[in-house]
């Protein structure tokens, strides 16, 4: 199952699956923005933070 959400940057429509989890990153197919799922109820997106100096391994 999937649903449509609105991109907070370009207001384009993004299809997302129902099994989203907090912390997940989705990419808007229209503008390419990386959006982070910060809440599931209600579903809330924010622009994902830039890569930090100590990220990854």
């Amino acid at each position, binding site marked *: 199952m999937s649903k449509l959400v609105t991109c907070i940057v370009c207001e384009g429509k993004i299809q997302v699956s129902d099994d989203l*989890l*907090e*912390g*997940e*990153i989705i990419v808007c197919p229209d503008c390419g923005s990386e959006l*982070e*799922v*910060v809440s599931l109820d209600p579903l809330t997106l924010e622009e*994902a933070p830039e*890569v*930090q*100096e*100590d*990220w*990854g*391994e």
Partner: protein
Amino acid sequence: MAKVFMFYSRLRTEERLLIEAARQRQIHFEPVVVSDRMWPNEIGGKGDVALCRCIGHVQNHALALTVEARGLITINPSNVMEICGNKISTSTRLSTAGIPQPDYAIAFSLEGALECAQKMGYPVVLKPPVGSWGRLLAKVNDRDALEAITEHKLHLGSQHSAIYIQKYIDKKGFDIRATIIGGIPVSAIRRCSDHWITNTARGGTAQSYPLSDELKKLLKQVHEAIGGMMLAVDLFETDSGWLVNEVNGQPEFRSSQEDITGVDVAGQIVDMAWSAACKEGEGVV
């Protein structure tokens, strides 16, 4: 009943794989986002296991310290994160254990950096002590470049005030990343690139690589030197033998998964975490 928590900040492929592996095993497993609450808190207790999976080293280490103080078993323990999260700590620990690695040195000034390079011979590689994904690495071929880069680094703040300098190794287009879980080497991949930086995060491609007895022996030595329940070791294969380049304490492992290596790394991590939780519940650990 003990439980395995997965504390994370950004849900990467690895965290998805861990959630799926736990679901398949039907164990007590709970993913928890760390961002929107204070730490320590009431989540978990003595004997529970915490897979610390924050994407940033500083947050992951702080998280591990706070949940350890409440009696949770952290994977990895905070002291292992501390060693692996800083290349100076890792290299000095490997030196103490007599494990082969590229020549390295630390400099605090331009004069120190020039002395390092003169003794090692150019090219040298400058790396931030804390960092990954091949970020801010600099291959320095001559004195002019070293002077310029060192000057820039010394203006980047305290994180860059200790300059980690490593002898450049001609790795012939690839390095090896080996995964150790519960002290046992379980898989290795060869990371190839036309660029001298071969991290898969920078476009390096991964192929399975056989774990020879010689390589397994070296990896066990690395584990003995550093500890931890899960390590990813980056190595160079040179004409004169293996060199351990870096040791990662909270690795991304999507390129070491079943489709490439035939090894279910996520499943083995979850099994190891669950086993630790069950043992603690029985009072064995």
